[in-house]
């Protein structure tokens, strides 16, 4: 075995059958999801059961409620994903299992990880734990398998706001992140404050179409010289403005707030892409479904002569297909998790290749 290329030894040593179809499982927040992906690129089935209605009355995700709901949704979601993939409870045709094991809500992550381990034991197929953030990065690869490197990914969701340089699959460098609220969190909080309900992102996106984005000049906070973000000052500014002006048009407030968030996100992402000579700028995460953000990113990328990769809305929000895709790549490179795989609420995104 001497002299074998280091990247292939693990895969060879594992002695498993070739990894073609991977079952992905995602329960890190408030979506219970399962999907089957073939060769890391073709979505064979993808089932997402959202708990939005459950959490709406609280204006945000309640961790204990989410954990409970995952337990109840687990069985039907898996059954649907397997059936739509032409498989069944025996796991026929499934060569590996990938599960999100962090970051996220610990009580939610544990449910998916427990399920994945049980299936791995019964079906006798390899298991790999996947970082949820890495899974989001793989979402665009599902639709654009020929992405060029390096690229800069703007990952924006209810829990995360970060700029990541990707020099190749598995090679990541965190360029910046939020120092307070995540972008999606700011959307949810402002939406709740101005009475738009939960989830805030789609609600603000919708009503902003009827508002004037220049009605209010909300602050654009860009902390430091690097690529960090801050949204709590903006949120406070919106709250203060509405308190002072209770009759302010909700559409104008929403549109002006959205304009400020998108302005900051796009300005920093564009600078980051230029800084590393990125061949493309890529969006990921639930906030990537925002129509203004998508339009602006397309526009600046066209201006700068680089690619813009905007995953479809279904792949921006949490799903298990992206987990399966990331897992396929890891399994293909010999990565295997043991049965004592831990869920880690604060799992960091690190390069492992």
């Amino acid at each position, binding site marked *: 075995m001497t002299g074998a290329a280091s990247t292939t030894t693990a895969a060879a040593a594992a002695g498993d059958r070739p990894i073609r179809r991977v079952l992905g499982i995602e329960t890190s927040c408030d979506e219970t999801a399962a999907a089957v992906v073939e060769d890391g690129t073709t979505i064979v089935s993808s089932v997402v059961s959202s708990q939005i209605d459950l959490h709406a009355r*609280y*204006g*945000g*995700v*309640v*961790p*204990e*409620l989410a*954990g*409970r709901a*995952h*337990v*109840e949704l*687990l*069985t*039907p979601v*898996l*059954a649907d994903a397997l059936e739509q993939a032409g498989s069944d*409870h*025996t*796991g026929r045709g499934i060569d590996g299992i990938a599960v999100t094991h962090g970051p996220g809500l*610990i*009580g939610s992550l*544990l*449910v*998916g*990880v*427990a*399920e*994945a*381990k*049980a*299936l791995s*034991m*019964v*079906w006798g197929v390899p298991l790999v734990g996947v970082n949820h953030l890495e899974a989001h990065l793989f979402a665009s690869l599902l639709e654009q398998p020929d992405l060029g490197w390096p690229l800069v990914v703007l990952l924006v969701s209810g829990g995360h706001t970060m700029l990541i340089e990707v020099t190749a699959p598995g090679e990541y460098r965190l360029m910046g992140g939020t120092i307070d609220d995540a972008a999606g969190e700011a959307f949810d*909080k402002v939406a*709740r*404050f*101005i*009475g*738009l*309900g939960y989830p805030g992102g789609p609600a603000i996106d919708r*009503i902003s179409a009827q508002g004037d984005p220049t009605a209010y000049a909300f602050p654009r906070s860009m902390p430091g010289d690097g690529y960090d973000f801050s949204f709590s000052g903006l949120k406070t500014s919106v*709250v203060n403005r*509405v*308190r002072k002006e*209770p009759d302010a048009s*909700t559409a104008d407030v929403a549109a002006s707030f959205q304009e400020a968030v998108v302005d900051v996100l796009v300005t920093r992402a564009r600078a980051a892409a230029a800084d590393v000579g990125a061949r493309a700028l890529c969006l990921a995460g639930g906030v990537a479904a925002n129509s203004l953000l998508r339009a602006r990113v397309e526009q600046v990328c066209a201006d700068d002569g680089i690619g813009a990769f905007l995953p479809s809305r279904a792949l921006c929000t949490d799903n298990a297909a992206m987990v399966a895709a990331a897992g396929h790549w890891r399994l293909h490179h010999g990565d295997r998790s*043991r*049965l*004592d*795989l*831990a*869920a880690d609420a604060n799992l960091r995104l690190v390069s492992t290749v």
Partner: protein
Amino acid sequence: MDDVGASGFVTLLALETATDLVGAALLRSDGALAERTHVGGRAHGELLAPAIEEVCALSGCTLADVDALAVDVGPGLFTGLRVGVATAKALGQSLGLGIVGVTSLDILAAGALEVGGPERAARVVAVVDARRREVFAAAYEFGGPSGPGGDQAVPAAVRHDRSEALSPDELATWLDGLVADGPVLVVGNGAVRYLDLLAPRPGVDTGLAGEVAAPSPATLARLAARRIGAGTEPTAAGDVVPDYRRHADARINWEERAPQRTPPPADGT
């Protein structure tokens, strides 16, 4: 374990995660038992699957040989219960098996009977620590003149369940009432936690509380086997849920709660 083979299973796998004790037991109808437990940690998610693999290896079988599943559905640690129940559901679904769900209180009472014997454990109160200075408890009467040996392991016939959470003082008052009819053996981690309050009370036997502090996978396996033998139908994997006995704590850790303004009118108005 005479004659369990006639009662509808060959190899039963039991999962226990309701308290700090995490583990699995594999019971075969010839009476052979393998058990693996870990005590003291909160790493249920990391410990359970390896324990399952170990009891299978110890028994010289695979999960494909398992034809009955049992799980402790609580009450107990919320995340622990979720790990156990989610594991059981996925095992049940992938193996095409139903699941016998058993409450932690029943398992504790069965454990008290196993350890204390029919005389000392004729009357048992099982107490699970619910944290926040509360407990869950249930009272059991075993044996008696009509209770033939084998069926004593099925603590269901006479059970007084306190489904709501009790304060330690409410538990003590309840026990004081129960001992009027004779001594009571009190077990479970809730009894251990409030030993200072319970031990001095006349008629309250806390001598086995430490030994029967946590429900054990082996006891769960034997109890579930008895129930299957007595005709209990397993629950479909999709229908098994933890018995939390408490509403979810609806906190999201955000500072502002209710909307400050009224919602906009519905579209078109």
